[in-house]
């Protein structure tokens, strides 16, 4: 049994209310309620794909660097990604510092890429900034490319002794992760300086 407001004659009232009928409200309210509920229900379906708590818990890792001689480097795993920890020789440091910034694609000095007082410790992600392969050069006898740093076998990106891109398709220098020296011979990768 339609009330007057819902029926055709009720349109008089509708005009009085700026063209809005009770029935319009009844339609909009539940559809909006259900629509917002439906959108809210989508959130769990989307956020479940983000890294889970157990993945985030592995966000930092400690590395003992006491055994690494000058000229040597090691590869460690951090967040399931390789990190290159390299003890640069004085010659490699000198080579890196000799390069003029204007010659670089991604302009950074060696000092900006190391910690003060630890200029010989070059710590970078072992992930080529082109498309994510692991460059060669951290292991004994691997091809270090013409600049003495790293050479990516996938598409030929060449990095210098400061891990900076010098030639090839990669756009950026090898990324320096957040890390700090917790002792003169221990580095915590993934930890901030503070």
């Amino acid at each position: 049994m339609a009330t007057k407001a819902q029926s055709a004659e009720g349109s008089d009232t509708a005009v009085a209310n700026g063209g809005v009928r009770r029935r319009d409200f009844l339609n909009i309210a539940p559809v909006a309620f259900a629509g917002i509920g439906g959108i809210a229900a989508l959130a769990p379906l989307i956020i479940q794909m983000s890294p889970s708590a157990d993945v985030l818990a592995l966000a930092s890792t400690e590395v003992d660097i006491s055994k690494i001689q000058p000229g040597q480097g090691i590869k460690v795993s951090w967040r399931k990604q390789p990190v290159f920890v390299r003890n640069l020789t004085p010659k490699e440091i000198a080579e890196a510092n000799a390069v003029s910034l204007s010659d670089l694609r991604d302009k950074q000095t060696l000092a900006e890429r190391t910690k003060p007082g630890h200029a010989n410790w070059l710590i970078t992600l072992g992930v080529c900034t082109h498309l994510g392969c692991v460059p060669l050069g951290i292991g004994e006898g691997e091809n270090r490319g013409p600049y003495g740093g790293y050479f990516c076998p996938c598409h030929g990106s060449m990095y210098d002794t400061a891990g900076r891109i010098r030639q090839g398709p990669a756009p950026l220098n090898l990324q320096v992760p957040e890390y700090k020296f917790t002792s003169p011979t221990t580095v915590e990768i993934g930890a901030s300086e503070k």
Partner: protein
Amino acid sequence: MSFSWAKAYEPKHPAMRWIDERLPLPRVVYGAIGGGYPVPRNLNYWWNFGVLAGLFLTIQIVTGIVLAMHYIPSTDGAFNSVNQLIMRDVNAGWFLRYAHMNGASFFFLVTYIHIFRGLYYGSYKAPRELVWMLGLVIYLLMMATGFMGYVLPWGQMSYWGAQVITGFFSAFPLVGEPIRIWLLGGYAPDQAALTRFYSLHYLLPFVIAAVVILHIWALHIPGSGNPTGVDVKDEKDTLPFHPFYTAKDGWFAGAVLLFYAVVTSFAPNYLGHADNYIPANPLATPAHIVPEWYFWPFYAILRSFTVDFILPAKLWGVLAMFFSILLLFFLPWIDKSPVRSGSYRPVFKRFFWLLVVDVIVLGYIGGAPINATRVAIGQFASAYYFLHFLVILPLVSAFETPLPLPNSITESVLHGEVAEAAPAGQTRPRRGSVATAE
């Protein structure tokens, strides 16, 4: 699809016309769940539960797909991947898992109401026999899917559920034990069983979805039934599915989803078993092992056979349990009464409600710890279940005098809203009736 006055699809937008001319999918959808499907105008709320079953199937598939992104189907990793990884570590994992757990219960709940709706209103009768039988196929697939899903968390109930259910097959002489070993891929549930249950648990819901399409297709040939059971005669008897029933189904689905949200949020483990939070132990069975609630009536029938009689009791129990569902396939021929709706069948109606009570009693017995009294009650209730279908229904349909049917759906509706489904001549006004207004 079903009636001559069904509106043909007329694309409102040129893009839809473009698609429709090349792939008439918009036309199919419009004819199936749009304005092109005429539905009897007198459907009551019991007719909402088919749509709800479809809704919960969708919820189960969506939450299941995302849970499968985190679940690890190994006997070492399954329990932790559910109870540690998904419940604690994955973002919103607890919500998705509880939604899936309780979604299964709600899927069965609305399906049971849907099935009993069909039993009361004679939805299995000509010309809808195949609709009914396809529905039973869906139900059997649901049972298989639900059981295998329950095994996946690899808790104590999961493990011993797998052991007991596959043990059914060992009841059959000669071939039984080899079949059981073949099903499990071993002598007891282990990695091989878990992996294949996971694979099939992912597959079967899509098979269910396919059979649902057949179920709806078969339904739309004669069109939906209605509470009077009288055939649709002309356009006055029907309303287009959209917007009338989409609106009614829509608001009711919202109400049921609220109830679902309350259970999922505030009592997520109410329908489960605490023992399933203990990792599977192949060397110790839990003291009280029962399946999920939706299997309880069948579990009661299984446990009711305690004495060897020609065949071993174990085999009788398994046969009776399978037969309790299989005989529903023959219902269109067991109940020969030409009157569909139970509202016009005074004797049938009483026995229908007795059956409902009987199934609830069976459910209680199936879920309760076993003792001598309960076994006796279960045996009586099991016997009555078969008596209802094999003896009472054929006799009632032969001897019952049905009430006079209304001449048409419209005529029954014109008695007024309250009396729309009441038998002709029984239009007693109820409290708050507005049938006489204006």
